[in-house]
């Protein structure tokens, strides 16, 4: 059996489109019948789905260039010959692509330049299957695809990388739901789940910058970014500063506009670098809030509340 190393034999995302439609319809109907927890607001749903549609157009416009970069590196500079038909090769790319995704996702949250392209995915205050399709229009421009080029350099054929990236995207679709509470304990320990990803989409200070996983949650556990969902504090979804309207252009570009505005006020190279590559919320005088400061204040409030509570009575001897 031979597989074309350049052109993917199939595109998992395209194949999954009917599944996306059917499951969204199912989630809405089951929500309507009160069988599962699901909230849909029509304009929010329209924004999510139209962002998804726009993302496929943006992807088609830049996808060729990105694919060419991967092909060029693989054809001219690959270090090893990796056969597409070997099971070990698929196991290896499963782990390596997922690790790459973790770091892409972490950078996309913790550095503003890349957050500007990813923020739209988090801009819904709802968490449902339609939210999963609220995808970026500017990911290609932001250049996060460069992180996957080392896989081509190692020797994984471009088609193999494309297929595994598609599998990862399709996996991540189903975890955007409140309809599923917790999966079996062993599954929650290893895989990214609706519970883990609800935490990732939450704006509660305690949950910020957590659970960057694609398929395997083990990376968050390994690199210290895992936060479990706490039943006592349900996630509130959306952004630290939620958007003021449903305008698609605002959803897609607001953070880029904010960066541009800040750069116009920059007074030094340090300011420029901070506004571009600092954490979201960075400002020269520290007057704005970052995830770190929000978390620190939340921890201080928790500590103060615990200290204010009266001590439990001593047990009688």
């Amino acid at each position, binding site marked *: 059996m031979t597989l074309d190393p350049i052109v993917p034999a199939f595109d998992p995302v395209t194949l999954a489109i009917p599944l996306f439609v059917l499951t969204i319809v199912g989630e*809405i109907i089951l929500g309507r019948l009160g069988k599962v927890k699901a909230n849909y607001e029509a304009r929010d749903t329209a924004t999510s789905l139209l962002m998804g549609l726009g993302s496929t157009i943006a992807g088609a416009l830049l996808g060729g260039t990105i694919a060419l970069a991967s092909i060029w590196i693989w054809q001219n500079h690959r270090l090893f010959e990796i056969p597409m038909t070997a099971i070990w090769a698929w196991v290896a790319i499963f782990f390596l692509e997922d690790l790459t995704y973790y770091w892409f996702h972490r950078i996309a949250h913790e550095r503003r330049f890349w957050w500007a392209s990813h923020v739209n995915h988090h801009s819904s205050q709802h968490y449902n299957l*339609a939210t999963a399709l609220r995808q970026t229009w500017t990911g290609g421009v932001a250049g996060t695809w460069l992180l996957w080029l080392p896989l081509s350099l190692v020797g994984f054929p471009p088609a193999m990388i494309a297929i595994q990236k598609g599998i990862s995207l399709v996996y991540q679709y189903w975890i955007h739901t409140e309809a599923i509470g917790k999966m079996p304990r062993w599954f929650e320990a290893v895989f990214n789940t609706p519970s883990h990803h609800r935490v990732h989409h939450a704006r509660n200070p305690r949950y910020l910058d957590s659970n960057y996983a694609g398929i395997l949650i083990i990376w968050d556990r390994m690199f210290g970014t895992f936060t479990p969902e706490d039943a006592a504090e349900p996630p509130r979804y959306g952004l630290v*500063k939620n958007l*003021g309207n449903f305008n698609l252009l605002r959803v897609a570009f607001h953070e880029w506009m904010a960066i541009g505005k800040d750069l116009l006020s920059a007074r030094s190279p340090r300011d420029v670098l901070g506004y571009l590559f600092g954490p979201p919320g960075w400002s020269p005088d520290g007057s704005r809030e970052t995830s770190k400061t929000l978390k620190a204040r939340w921890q201080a409030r928790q500590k103060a509340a615990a200290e204010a509570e009266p001590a439990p009575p001593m047990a009688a001897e």
Partner: protein
Amino acid sequence: MDGMVIQLIGSAIAVAAMVALAAWARIARPVAELDTAAVARLLADDYPDHPIDHVWIAADGQGAIARSGDMALVLSLLGDSWVARDLPWDRALASPVRAGRVRLRLGDPGAPVLGLAVSGVRPWPPAQFQEAIAA
């Protein structure tokens, strides 16, 4: 190319159908009626360290402005969810009323302007705030 256009048209039809279904299902979150306690509770999510001095609720109940020291904390309903922002109190007081809405300019690309409904019964700025300022 033709295949892509057909796929795009098909996707657009599917999007329209799913949005129509979501509207039909009426499973948006219930929006609680705003009163002073609800405003304080909602603002506490975004401004937990800001005690609230006074609250003004928009005429349609879909927004509020709360004074917290020299800041105005603004709540505005978007769909079935709330958007919160702040601006200097003086700027909020001076915000113009046009077409029955006080228009609060925030200078934030994510929410450049929030407009809240005013009425004869609930004008902006309300008398209690003006009295507080005069005092």
